[in-house]
């Protein structure tokens, strides 16, 4: 096992801090097709997510809540990356992020854009849940669950 001290710069990449300071997707939507609220009961982090679809594609994403830099940045990236994607593709991206966090090989890795910056979170295992909360919430919204808790 690697016992060296994980570098903070691996976790807090500038791109992550940028998303944290200026998050995307904060504009509330007039109507939503899919909606869910996610919560991590261990730390109190909360995410509210709404999606608006047009012609089978995600046209608008609204995401807000309370959370640490990692969960806010991950949510902001979600809002940015899912825009214009169809549900199937969006689910693949979500899966690709989860696979990256759990060190699984995934062919779709090239498509995940800014999300690659979250790879450093792997070295801080207790923070993986922070990075995945918005995505778990997204997946639950698609299934039709309104409220989820991850623990």
């Amino acid at each position, binding site marked *: 096992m690697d016992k*060296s*001290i*994980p*570098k*903070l*710069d691996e*976790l*807090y990449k500038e791109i992550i*801090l940028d998303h944290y300071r200026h998050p995307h997707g904060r504009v509330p939507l007039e109507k939503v097709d899919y909606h869910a609220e996610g919560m991590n009961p*261990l*730390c*109190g*982090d*909360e995410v509210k997510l709404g999606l608006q679809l047009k012609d089978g594609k995600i046209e608008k994403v609204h995401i807000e809540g*309370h*959370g*640490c*830099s*990692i969960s*806010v940045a991950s949510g902001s990236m979600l809002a940015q990356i899912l825009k214009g994607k169809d549900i199937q593709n969006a689910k693949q991206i979500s899966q690709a992020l989860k696979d990256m966090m759990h060190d699984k090989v995934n062919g779709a890795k090239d498509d995940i854009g800014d999300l690659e910056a979250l790879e450093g979170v792997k070295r*801080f295992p207790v*923070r993986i849940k*922070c990075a995945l909360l918005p995505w778990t919430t997204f997946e639950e919204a698609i299934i039709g669950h309104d409220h989820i808790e991850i623990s």
Partner: protein
Amino acid sequence: MCLPKRNRHESGKTMLDTKKIRKDFKILNRKIWAGKTLVYFDNAATTQKPQVVIDSLVNYYENYNANIHRGVHKLAEEATEAYEKVREKVRDFVGATKNDEVIFTRNTTESINLLAYSLGESLEEGDEVLISEMEHHSNIIPWYLLRDRKKITVKFIPITKNYELDYSALEKLINKKTKIISITHKSNVLGTVNDIKRIAQIAKNNGSILIIDAAQSVPHMKVDFQDLGCDFLVFSSHKMCGPTGVGVLVGKKELLEKMPPFLGGGEMIRKVTFEGFTPNDVPWKFEAGTPNIADVIAFGTAIDYIESLGIENIYKYECGLTEYCLSKLKQFDFLKIYNSSGTGIVTFSNPLVHPHDIATIVDQYGVAIRAGHHCAQPLMKRLNVSATARASFYFYNTKEEIDLFIEALKKAFDYFKVGACKKLNPVGG
């Protein structure tokens, strides 16, 4: 095994010889990362264990492990005696009058669940239970469960803007339907110590039963069950140098005798027939099944250890540490601090850097603090935050450790470019 009651660590002007004390805790030398020694500031969650407590566990399993209260052999006799001796120690430590007023449970949470279930049996629809806004979930959920079972009402005593209990609101809320008041002695977030004697008088005048959650007070300050005037007092071993898996419920004997059992099984019965059973006397009526013998015995050693230092000395020393920490935190004028008094707990937040991020960064410097809602979500809601960061001290902590913590905090605020810290270069490693 027993340490002398006199303060063996007393030396000159300093009340506690922390240098000497720290040698009793091997874990305090642990290197968390290369060159970073542990600074353990999560004592409100659980404390570290001195070597004598660990040795006590090993000694039990190596030399006299046996089930208690039933064997006639030598080992069973020794184990039973050691287990029951701890009841006496707890009785003396918290000023109960009788051995049978001390019941061992798994933890504070189980003690409160026992009370909510057993006392709750006599409550009727429309009765009320009063708790406060500063309660840990363990003193909320058991009452919600009872509420749903018995159709009673649970009401919250508010806190003031100084993070203290609103006593005038308590006097307004209490009424003839208030059967139980269950309240924390010391908040695990705010560090506020509530005036239990005052509450006890109000409860008594109203004929309400008073339960005190003393999980955060008994380890850190003198607590006297009779002097406080409450009916029940609950706390945990693991927050006072003892092992996990042992909780205490101290209660007035006449009330315990009237209460129905909580869990059923061996040990808690006197007689079982094909038709039914007769419960055992207190305290065993509430100790169903084989108890946590080893950990109870080691908990006794923990009490001896704390008594050897002196609980008053511990209290004064921790107040000194807390004041020192609060004075150092003043330099970060952008922090919101949620403590009105200095009692071993320092809780803070800032909207620009989340407590999780603070905790991750100070962990890089070996400093263990807690970030989150501290199992007090309603209180977080009242404070209008989703989470806070908390440093909590015990007698083995030092001012030098607080200095390291403050330096680590500076790095965290630098990283997130918060407030007065102007340095823009992040500190990677």
